[in-house]
């Protein structure tokens, strides 16, 4: 192994290591962000359905009493 090989190996391992760390962190961030958007959309849909059910029940009660 020449000295150049050691220098190239040191820089190569460093770029690879930092590149992998960056990739993992970016993918993890994107994954959590996507999950959060999905959960919030589901939550909104659940609330909308609950509000519609309540409204339907109220109007049914009003019709019955009339």
């Amino acid at each position, binding site marked *: 192994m020449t000295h150049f090989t050691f220098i190239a*190996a040191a820089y190569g391992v460093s770029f690879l290591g930092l590149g992998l760390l960056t990739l993992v962190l970016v993918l993890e961030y994107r994954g959590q962000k996507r999950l959060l958007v999905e959960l919030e959309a589901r939550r909104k849909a659940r609330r909308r359905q609950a509000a519609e059910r309540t409204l339907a029940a109220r109007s049914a009660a009003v019709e019955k009493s009339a």
Partner: protein
Amino acid sequence: MALLDLANPVRFMTLSARVLPVLAAAAVVVLGIGFYLVFHAPADYQQGDTVKIMYIHVPFAWLSMFGYTLMATSAIGLLVWRHPLADVAHKATAPVGATFALLCLITGALWGRPMWGTYWVWDARLTSMLVLLLLYLGLMALRAAIEDPNRAGRAAAVLTLVGFINVPIVKFSVDWWNTLHQPASVLRMDGPTIDPSLLWPLLTCAVGFSLLFITLQMLGMRTEILRRRVQSLEARAAAEASA
């Protein structure tokens, strides 16, 4: 308003969304300049071109100690003030610090082989650096092993503070013991002993890697805050479904 009040997760997410791209760009630019200077820096009169490993090895060593110090500060913030961002910062720093410590050991071994004739010796500097890496890994494993995140955070904070004793040992090991590793040549009471033609590329690379470290740590903090929001929403959805 106290500084601690300013540092809440919502404000952090707003501020970091603006700061993160600037930090990432600055890291790339400064590292680019640093590597340009490294490429044009003269060879050392004794080590020849092998000295080029110093420009990455030394910043990795500094930043792995900086990362642990940041974790120890966060541990105090968590244990004393129970600050929500302190736990987030503590958790996000560990993988970044561990990577820098691992790269410090690998680049050190690759520098040691042509200069000392060996990849590894059990001298005080190398061994204490290995202990630092094991502390990082141990802290990550401890968090993963405890299910309750609050208990995991507190346990990790206590272990971080106990393990902080190793940071001055890493720094001063070359002064306290007779080691194969050379003594400090930059961070010294009487100033750097390294020639300016080698010092400036080293300092530029150190600034660039510091910016990269902070960028990655901040990204990790943002991910952790999002993860906690996801967990909270999932718990709320489960509670609503069971009600």
